[in-house]
């Protein structure tokens, strides 16, 4: 899914300028907890989050996350935007809640990063 298509699905806006809207994302992840993001995401993920402090950008950089969507209209402070520009990570804004933003994207076919098997208590990556 391209970032352009994603923006349409969530009726969203771009926060950082000069984004290549034709970049593709392979999977999605919705989380406000950064350590969860590090444990379970993969390269090429789009992250939906309500966390707006600069650490969300740092986490994205470490985890090779392609883009960040701030949900329920949360707008990040300048520190976060500046860091995102420096690290070249696109920031987008969605007017929908976390639940609806993720739902809209997932329903259109963007897969999740994996699944946790409750019986074996193991995390299974969808993309190796």
């Amino acid at each position, binding site marked *: 899914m391209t970032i352009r298509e994603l923006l349409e699905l969530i009726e969203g806006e771009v926060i950082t300028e000069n984004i290549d809207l034709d970049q593709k994302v392979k999977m999605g992840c919705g989380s406000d907890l950064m350590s969860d993001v*590090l444990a379970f995401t993969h390269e090429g993920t789009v992250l939906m989050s309500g966390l707006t*402090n600069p*650490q969300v950008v*740092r986490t994205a950089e470490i*985890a090779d996350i392609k883009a960040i969507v701030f949900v329920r209209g949360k707008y990040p402070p300048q520190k976060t935007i500046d860091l995102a520009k420096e690290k070249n990570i696109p920031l987008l804004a969605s007017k929908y809640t976390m639940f609806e933003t993720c739902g809209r994207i997932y329903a259109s076919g963007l897969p999740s990063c994996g699944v946790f098997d409750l019986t074996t208590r193991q995390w299974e990556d969808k993309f190796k």
Partner: protein
Amino acid sequence: MKAEKDDLAPTITKLKELTYEIKIGQAMTKDVITVPPHTTMCELREVLKANRISGTPVVENGQIIGIISLEDLINAMGVCGPISTKKNGEDISKIQEKNMASVRENMNMTTVQENMTLNPETLYADEPLASAISKFNKFHYGRFPIINRQEDLVGIITQSNIIHAVLQHLEIAYYREEIHDQSSGHVLEDIIADEVKLILRYHVNAEDFDHAGEASSRLKKTLHSLGFHPQTIRRVAIASYEAEINLVLWGKGGELQVEVQPSQIKLETFDTGPGIENIEQAMQPGYSSAPEWVQAMGFGAGMGLPNIKACTDDLKLESTIGEGTHLKAIIYINEI
């Protein structure tokens, strides 16, 4: 547009390099169709048509005595009138006149031997493609027979063979480059020594959330420059980031030290913070002693130490209450 030009330049150089690297023997067609000298031009036409080729060497007793092509076939027919062409130093208009009388009858009678080019240009199989390319440029023939150093016919080369060989090698070269680029720290391996260790040290300040994670970001870039595989870099970066955040959250700041070797990367943090009361408990996924304000920042999910454990091959955590904590983790580099 500057980027485009830079993209092309290495490809063109690579192409040139390949034309010297690839030998004619690797590019040529090995099953050569040949005809004996007494073949009639009608029979030749069938041979060319059936094999979809435009010319063949003429062979007698295993030796190449000439080469015959479509052009020779057309000239032999002479239907538009004799063309005053010299072939092998002789005027061929007599043959063409003969042919004009009854083209079909004469095509049955005139042989390859009468129409072929003697002493064809050949190339040796062990010569580089560059030689073939120069020859094509010089002579404008469609094909050259290829011989070995004992002068036996071993193949034939056309410009199509050359294109195929170069494309195939370009693909292989690109693939090999990609793989080599991803081998473990090839920059370190280029250093000739009995043992190579690169030590990186970062000072992490206490409660500096704006810069927390910056050391790990720099480490990640460094590992990339050193040529480590993206998977390795990811493991180290995540472990480092979590360890760095712990230093800021709990350790009252401290030192992050990374020892890089071609076979493994060792990650250590040292702090003089309050220490960890129950290490086993701290290692449980989801367990966190983070106060509200930390959780509000997105931390305190309780995944920090478990994440480090998941990303590394060997983890040791030592802590003394009131004195500090020492974390040591090793990531072994697997050969891809």
